[in-house]
Every structure is written in C-alpha cells, then in structure tokens.
C-alpha cells in the first residue's frame, strides 16, 4: 500500500506518497517531477538514473524509497542553478559535451562524486569512474574533456 514517505531532495524535505518498495527513481521523476535522473535500464547497468546520496553517486533505479531514510539526495537540478551552474555543468556546456544528452545526467552526477573524492583526477581516473556509465551517441571524448576542464578550473579557483 502507498505510504507517506519523507525525502530530502535538493535541500528541501518532501513527502511523497509511494509504495515503500518502489524505486527512488520513480519518486523523483513522477512524484517530484524532476527531469534530471532518467530511466535507462532499471537494472543498475547504465547510469542514466544516477543521483547523489549523501554525496555518493548511486543508481536510483534500484534504491527502494524505504532505504533512503534521511539521506540527502541531490539530482542534476540541485547541483547548480541557472544563475550559478556547477563547475561541471559549465564545463559540459563549454565543451559542448552532449549529443542527445540522455546519458549526461549520469555522467555529471558520477563525475561530481569523483571530483569530491579526488579533485585532481588523471584521465585514467576519469575513465574508470565513468566506466559504468553508458553513452550510445559516442560523446565520450567530450565528456572526458569536460570533466578534465571542470577539475582544472576548480583547482585554479
């Protein structure tokens, strides 16, 4: 049966009415009407649904809402604002790192989690961090360049 469950998303608390064993992705997309996290596989195989949970990148398609508790969830919308985009968002725009863009949510969220752990990643670190994220358009070269750019700009700030 659906329950009222509190979620902390993008710095605000929300109450969603969902089944406890339903996945976080659907609460974010259907109940909170967010568009950053995407349904790609529902099997933890592609990364399209990635969000930050207490700062770590996770696949929201396999996280039951009941397992979220009071963890802080951040989605692509909450990473930066139109006025103050996140350095990764600025870098992805500067590198024009998207074709269809469907995978890009996952790329940016995964990279955000990487840069937090490792502010000066090597190219190899970036490839390893993003290795579980699939892009079918073949935007990989630009995505890697964008993460490198964001890291460089952060360090020089």
């Amino acid at each position, binding site marked *: 049966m659906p329950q009222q469950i509190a979620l902390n998303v993008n710095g605000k608390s929300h109450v969603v009415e969902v089944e406890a064993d339903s996945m976080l992705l*659907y609460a974010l*997309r259907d109940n909170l*009407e967010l*568009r950053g996290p995407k349904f790609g*596989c529902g099997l933890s195989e592609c990364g399209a649904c990635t969000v930050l949970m207490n700062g770590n990148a996770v696949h929201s398609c396999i996280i039951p809402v009941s397992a979220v508790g009071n963890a802080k969830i951040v989605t692509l919308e909450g990473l930066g604002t139109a006025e103050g985009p996140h350095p990764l968002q600025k870098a992805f725009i500067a590198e024009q790192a998207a074709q269809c863009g469907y995978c890009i949510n996952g790329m*940016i969220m995964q990279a955000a989690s990487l840069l937090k752990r490792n502010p000066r990643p090597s190219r190899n670190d970036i490839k390893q961090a993003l290795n579980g994220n699939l892009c*079918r358009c073949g935007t990989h070269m630009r995505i890697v360049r964008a993460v490198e750019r964001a890291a460089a700009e952060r360090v020089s700030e």
Partner: protein
Amino acid sequence: MSAKSNDMRSTAEGALSRRDFLRTSGGLVIAFTLFGPAGPAGAAESSPADAAQPSLTPPPAGKLYAWLAVHPDNSATLFTGKVETGTGVQTALAQIAAEELDLPFDRLDVVMGTTSKTVDQGPSYGSMTVRYAGPQIRQAGAAGRQALLDLAAKHFGVPAQQLVVKEGTISVSGSPDRSITYGKLVDGKRLNIDIGASGQQFGLKVAPNARPKDPSTYTLVGKPIARKDIPAKIMGRFTYVQDVRVEGMLHGRVVRPYGVEATLVSVDETGLKKIPGFVQVVRRENFLGVVAKTEWGAIQAAAKLGSTLNPSGPEAGQAKWSNWSGLPKMDQIWETVRNTPAVHSSSAVSKGSTATALASASRTLKATYKTPFQMHGSIGPECAIADVKGDRATLWSGTQMPHETRRDMAKLLNIPLDGIEVRWFEASGAYGRNGLEHVVADAAIMSQIVGKPVRVQWMRWDSHGWEPKEPPIVQDLEGGLDSAGHVIAWQHHMWVPTTGDTHLVAAALIGHPDVTGQTGASGRAPVRYAYNFDNAEVTSHGEGRVGLLTAWLRSPAQFETTFAMESFIDELAAAAKQDPLAFRLAHLEDAKAIAVLKAAAQAYGWESRPAGAKADRSGKPAHGRGIAWVNRDDSRVATIADVMVDPSSGRISVSRVVVAHDCGMVINPDGLKNQIEGNVIQSLSRTLHEEVAFDTARVTSLDWKGYPILRFEEIPDRIDIVLVNNSPEHPSTGGGEPSTCPTAAVISNAVFDAIGVRLRQTPFRPESVKAAMS
C-alpha cells in the same frame, strides 16, 4: 522556459500564461538559455479534449507563415518538419535561417516536427537533413527577409534598394534615425505571404524566386556556434519525450509475446487488483499490456504477466503464450541469409569480364565477410504518450518521422487524418529506426481501449528485444592480380536482408500487420563502387525479412559493405606486397576520394610500407595501423587508426583515430566534429563488441550485459579530424552517418598489420581474435 509563442495569432493577443501558451503552441520544446528563467518541473501538457484547436493539418509550404513567425519583441521562430535526434541539426538549420534573415542567432527559436505547425519535409534520416532541408529553409529565410524589406519599403515610402538590414532592424540607407525592427514592422501578425512551393518532402522546392545571400558574406553559417539544446540538457531542464506528462494520464507497459510470433493463449489476472494503482489489462488479439495510475504499478502488473528480464518460457508469467520457435538458428544465420531468395537484385557495377580476368590472373584471392544482427540500443527506452478519443488523437512522440507517424496512426486507429496531431519532443538518440515509431502505436492502442491518455515507456528488455535490428549480411569477394600486382578482376556479391521493414509490431499483434508499413528490399546496392578495376562485378541480393524485424541503423548495410570491400582491397594490397594507401590511390580516379585519403594520410603522418610487413607473431602485444575510406551518398570519408593487439588476451585497443571528412560546406564545424567523434566511437563499439544473440523463439540479448557496448576504458586517446572541401562552392552533403562506414575495415586492416591475422567477421571480441590467431 521562454514563453515565446510559435503562433502569430496568439502572440498578437498579448502576453500568455504558460498554460495558455502550451495550449496554443502544442508540444513546443524551447531551448532554455542558461541564465534565463527555468520553467516549472515537468511539462504539464493539456489534452486535446480541452483545447480548442482550429486545424491539425500541416500549414501550406507555399506560405511564409509555414516557416517563419516574427514576434513583437523582435525575436522569431523557425518551423521545420525536420527533427533533432541528437545530431545538432536544430542548430544547423537555425544558423541557415538566421543567416538569411539577418537576425541574431539567439533571437531565433526552432519548432520541430509537430505536425500541425510544420511542413512535411520528409523524415530526418539518411544524413539528409542539411542536404535537403537546408536549401528549403535557406529559400524560406531569404523569402522572409525579402518580405520584411517590402514591408519596410512601404512603411518608409522608399524603394527597397535604399534599405539596409542589421540584426533584425531595417533602416533607410544614410538616415539611421529612420529605422524599425522586424517585430514592430510585423506587429504581431501572421506572415500570410505567398512564397511559392512545389514538390514534396525531400524534393520540396520552396520560394523558388527568393535570392539567398552570397556565401562570401556569411557571418553565422560555417561558424562553430554553441548548440541551442545543450544548456537545458546539462542543467536538467530539458523536456525529453520521456519527461512529458499529460493531465490525467495513465502509465502503460507492454507485455510482448515470449516467442516473436507466439499467440496469446490465456491471461490469468489473479492478484493484479491487489497491485496499488492497477487499472486494467489491455488486450487486443495478441497485443497485451497493462495500465495503472503509477509507473511502479504498471511495472509490477506487467511483471506478473511475464514482462521480466529473464522469463523462463512461454508460460513463465500469468499470460500464457503458444510455444513458437520459428527463428533460424543463430549459428546458421549466414547460411540462412545466403539461401533466402532475393526480392530485388541490383548491380552497382558490371564491367568487362570478371570470369575471364580471374582465369588469367597471376594470383587470385577469395574471402567471405560476415556481420551480425546489431541494435540501435538507445540509452533511454522508447516512450510515447497517446490520447485517443473518438476520432481525435494526440500523440506525443520522439519519432524521426512525425508526419509519417501521423499518417500511420490514422490507418492504425482508423481515424481521419484531420483528427490527428503528433506533438514532437526529442527522445534519447535513435540512430535510425529504433522502437520510437512502434511505441507510439502501443500507446495509441492502449489509449483507444481505455479512453484516457496513456504513457508507455518500454522496459529495457522490450527495447533490446523488440526494436528493429540491423540485419546480418554475408558477402563473398574474389579478386585477381596481374604479375605487376595490379587488380585486374573484382567480384563482390552481398546478401542483404531488408533494412527498410516498416511494419509496426503492434499492428501485427492486433492482427493487421499490413495496415501500415511495408517490407522494403534494398532497391540499389548498399555500396558505392569507386575503384577503376578493368573487370568488376558488384551485385547485391536484396531480401525481405530474415528472422528478426529489421530496419535502418546508422549507415544501413553500408557500414557492413564498406567493411568487406575496404578489408578485401587491403588483402589484395598485402598479397601484392604494396602499401595499402598507394594501392588504393593507384586504383582510384574519384578526385574527392583521393583528396580525403591524402588528407588523412598527411594528418596521420603516413609512411609508405606494405601492410603486415612488420607483423609481430611473437605473441607479445603488437601495434598496427589501418586505413579505409567510403563514399556515402556523395560524402567522402577516410579513416586511419592505430591499434594494439594483445595476443594473450585477444584484446584490441585503439589509441589514435584520424578522420578526413568531405561533406562539402559545413554549417557548424563543431557540431560536425561532435557527430564524427560519435560515429567513430559508436562504430568502434559495433566493430569490437556488438552482436544480437537469439534462440529460435526470441532475442536473448535483453540488457547491456547481453549486448555490451564500448565503455570509457576503451576509448581512443585521440580522434583527429580534418575537414576537406569545406567551402561554399561545394554544396553540403550529409554528416550524420558517413564516418561510421570505414571503421570495421580500418580495425581489421590494423589488426592484420599488427599480427598478420585477418578478421572477417564482426564483432572482433577477444575470443574471436584468439580463434582467428590459432
């Protein structure tokens, strides 16, 4: 969201609320400016029942308003029946229009695809958008500029020749105080001006009398302008078709047959009512689906009926299917293809006598090349929303052919065309005909049955299992060399199942397979023969469906035929102990082909030596280089790559790729480079990894584990791109596909160069590399 209407009539009525805006403009996706106001989350779309729409018929191509609207704030909207599929054509077409209109680029919005707002310019496929729609839009833009000048001439009472235009403002030459903006001039009116049009779709000629600009004066076309759609995509503010929400909609999921042509025996609904939000089972003949108030409810209900990743058989779920197993055996697929009778054979060349020349050759070579079923594999599974009520239907879709989809849905739903509107929203990249055309039909049938708007998104296994595939192809080649190492005979036979089967899965399931679509067999050989061998015979045996449903995937069949011909010429070069570049050049007259090969070689730093001359057979990791080229619908591309082969693991890694690309005048060089990089990576993936597996009942590659694609750890270190003949005297040809074609041959040739082993069957997975070595 910039609340800019695409409809002059409503703009004239003054400021609109966001809601009204959506009602009048229908399905408009607007590029957000990075620092502009962001729209509310979720695109709340109205349903047609409460929208009083005057007409759902596409506007007439001979009227200026069919292409252009000018708004009071001196911005404008371009309307085009073409759609964005991630390739950047929205930006390229906007550059062409803004250029002709003398309008700042950021003042031009683009409305794409929605059938009641745009002219049918043909589907957005085959690398044909800039080539064919570009000139149509250029003429419309030039006609628009002329019309605005005529209005200004009247306004100022001076001849049009005395007027100058700058950035959307017209002034009288010599008196800068006498000036007026386009917006003021048009004053919120619809541009009801005849510009003339004839022909249809790709052959449509628009505004034949308009005089476009002299390309030497271009300020926007040819510039690497940032794509309009990217900021919103990066900020999480873009509305994909997967994000559209319609008031009162239900969530649907399909439950496909276990075997491809299995029939539905029974449906046991026990327990479905207990699923929260469950509404009903939807069934029409063999078409089965569920609808629920929540996505989760629909997924749970579909799972109970049997829609899961690994169902164990036709009776695994509560829906029971007949035991169908009519597919060919996977390990016999190429024999099956070879033995399937041709529907249409075509010849690319027939010159001299190949048989006689082969008989007199001092050396002959023979080889067979095989390529498997491959899939589009969009990261976002196909999704559509349909609202069908009586003889009205609104369809929210990301199809690459909205106008075609509208006509198809009229037939499928048996509703007059006038009652149907397709509102186009971009989807996850499709690279051809994936399931986007099919999911609309699924949603439409469900909505027609339940009488409410229904959103259907395929599950990952629906997409992998049921999207139309690229067909398996088998090719026999035979060549003869004379004693000087010159090719005197070339014979190439290919067996190619259709890449144009447009039947809708749902139509077949409801028992009307032929209500829309057709099985197309290739009407011409999917190869551009270009060498000047004295004796040559190139024949394509075009077939109907063989096994699985197949339709076009990026560079349909030509990716495969280029693999065979450009690998086999390498085989001949190696047999003649000649440098593979020099060998190609010695047998070519096509000046553009020669130019891209030379440009690639120069950028790469090519040194002449026979292929395989340094092949390392010691078992240590070995390096090699490969070259290949293609003519895809008049675009020429030459590619060179460096690979390393590790004989102990069988792994191939690609370190550097150089591409020389000639598609004539490039509208947006950065957009094109993005496309070329994408083509290279995707085709590397198809070369190294991709093969759809199936048993005699169904596809068994149902997720990314079963159909692996290239990952970050395997990308090249560099992709260097050289643009050739990028100037106005060379008309634009296509850029969306050509650079896919050479890749498999390049890698096969490079592997041969590295270890002296020839790979003739894709994918080149480690186990097949090792098998070829032993």
